[in-house]
């Protein structure tokens, strides 16, 4: 495309085009994007995609191997594994996405304030997050879920809480760096209020990092959800969830390993796809990365 043609596009469009090109040059990231999107669509359109109701039991066909009627076979209660896997995406995506969003909603403001104002807030916040980070993510999530009681909502809250300290760290770090930028100093020199500075100058320049963080935490939360359901602390049966499917499949590992393989594969692919997408996005958003 010639210089003149490029000039006709709006600036936003040009930036997006460049990013798209960079992303497309990374096949792994593209694969990640496609698969992640597939799971998201699967979650949204589960009622349409799944051939059977996930709770519908057909005891006559219990533990049936894959066939034309049941793509992935049936489980011990005669439920269609394929449909359950598809519906399971819902639980995973819901918990994965919402817990991450909730964590960000809490962590970002705290990180902004700590990083921007420093003073006494920063050391206090930093020490608290340090302590919280000493506990592994999954242990915190499991512990909190156990306290709150098993349910999808509680699982979401538990996973969000466990993700908050690390997100505070990231946000604080970005804020510390951004507040030294000259345009922030210019805004101060303009007499802008702190809210204006944080809202117009600091936060918008963090979105790249935050997007990348999302692609890290969503798969972590998916694994978290699977673990919680596996332990019986998350989604409760009969609601399908990959974790629940794994848990229920344990006694039948010898007879029907596919009952473990399919949900396991789903978890694996879902998290891998977000990870690859995240890696790709990180490269794309970092202007210094060369091809």
């Amino acid at each position: 495309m010639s210089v003149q043609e490029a000039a006709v596009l709006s600036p936003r469009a040009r930036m997006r085009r460049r990013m798209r090109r960079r992303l497309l040059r990374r096949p792994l990231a593209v694969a990640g994007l496609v698969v992640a999107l597939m799971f998201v669509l699967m979650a949204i359109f589960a009622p349409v995609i799944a051939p059977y109701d996930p709770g519908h039991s057909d005891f006559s066909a219990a533990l049936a191997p894959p066939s034309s009627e049941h793509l992935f076979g049936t489980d011990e209660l005669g439920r269609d594994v394929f449909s359950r896997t598809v519906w399971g995406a819902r639980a995973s995506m819901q918990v994965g996405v919402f817990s991450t969003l909730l964590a960000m909603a809490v962590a970002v403001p705290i990180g902004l304030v700590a990083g921007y104002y420093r003073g006494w807030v920063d050391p206090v916040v930093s020490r608290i997050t340090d302590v919280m980070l000493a506990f592994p993510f999954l242990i915190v999530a499991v512990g909190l879920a156990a306290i709150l009681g098993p349910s999808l909502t509680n699982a979401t809250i538990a996973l969000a809480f466990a993700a908050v300290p690390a997100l505070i760290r990231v946000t604080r770090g970005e804020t510390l760096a951004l507040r030294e930028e000259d345009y922030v100093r210019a805004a101060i020199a303009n007499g802008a209020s702190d809210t204006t500075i944080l809202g117009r100058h600091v936060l918008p320049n963090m979105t790249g990092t935050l997007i990348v963080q999302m692609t890290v935490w969503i798969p972590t939360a998916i694994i978290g959800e699977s673990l919680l359901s596996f332990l019986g602390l998350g989604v409760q049966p009969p609601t399908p969830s990959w974790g629940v499917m794994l848990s229920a499949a344990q006694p039948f590992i010898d007879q029907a390993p596919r009952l473990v393989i399919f949900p396991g594969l789903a978890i694996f692919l879902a998290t891998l796809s977000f990870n690859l997408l995240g890696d790709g996005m990180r490269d794309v958003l970092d202007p210094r990365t060369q091809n």
Partner: protein
Amino acid sequence: MSDPTLEVTDLRMHFPLSGRLGRAGAVVHAVDGVSFTVAPGEVLGLVGESGSGKSTVGNCIMRLLEPTAGTIRLKGKDITHLSRSQLRPLRREMHMVFQDPYSSLNPRMTNGAAVGEPLRLHGIAQGKDLERRVAELFDQVGLNPDLRHRYPHELSGGQRQRIGLARSLSVRPSLLIADEPVSALDVSVQAAILNLLTDLQHDLGFACLFITHDLSIVEYFCDRVIVMYLGRIVETGTREQIFASPQHPYTQALLSAAMTPDPDVQRGRQRITLEGDLPSPIDLPAGCAFRTRCPLAHESLPKSEEEVPELRDVDGDGHLVACHLARHGRRVPRLGERVAPSTDRVAGR
């Protein structure tokens, strides 16, 4: 005789170093007793190398920092310790242009929004009126007003500096602090920005504190000059005084180190080299801070080790020097022949 636009008196900015084992209480003396004034419409050059404290002076005046001691008076009003909300209305009177064109503009804001921000924040204009004013400002700094809708990363370094200037001058401040505004630009672009600054200063009549390390720009653009070393002023005077007859040995060394783009002249000049390294600002040498590198140090002993030299008007002509060797009737010895580039040119051509 009108009030000076800016009056700085005994400004000090000390940064405590925190938590260093065994060095708790160590302090960086970034600015250590600086006093000067800027008259309305005057361009004052603030010259120094790294560690001189010149940028810190600029930041203090802009109240991006709160000075440790001393006073800053903007158009007669003491702004040294005002709170943010008290400062806000006064911020219309002073603004700053930054060195790095790549970090002085928010990458997420359109150029028009960046330029219009001060007008908006100070409640001077909004809506259509704001749009119009912003377009006018673009025109004034030599930019196509269509660029209002673009983003900074689409502009060159020189164009971004123009945006920075438009933003700073949008509210018609009385004082513009330019902190190395052209140092990050290529020479040809530098020329354009300097021309623009000259024009704007002529049209709008603001006073300007021009902070730089580049002496050739100072000679070109500034009416008066202040030379700083390790947080203190070592010499101040008019452009002619400083460039034709520099007094302080540091000023002389600085001028001799500046390169002239003329091989015959440049190679014919005798260069004054300073020995040693810049002392650490945490641990300033007692007395005269420059004595560790001064070619004339031996002549000023033992006083230079004990007493900080005072900035004095030796001949009553407004040319101030802070050197123990400067006395009435006796000038500081010239360190080398043909020191100042401009005198070479005047003499040789």
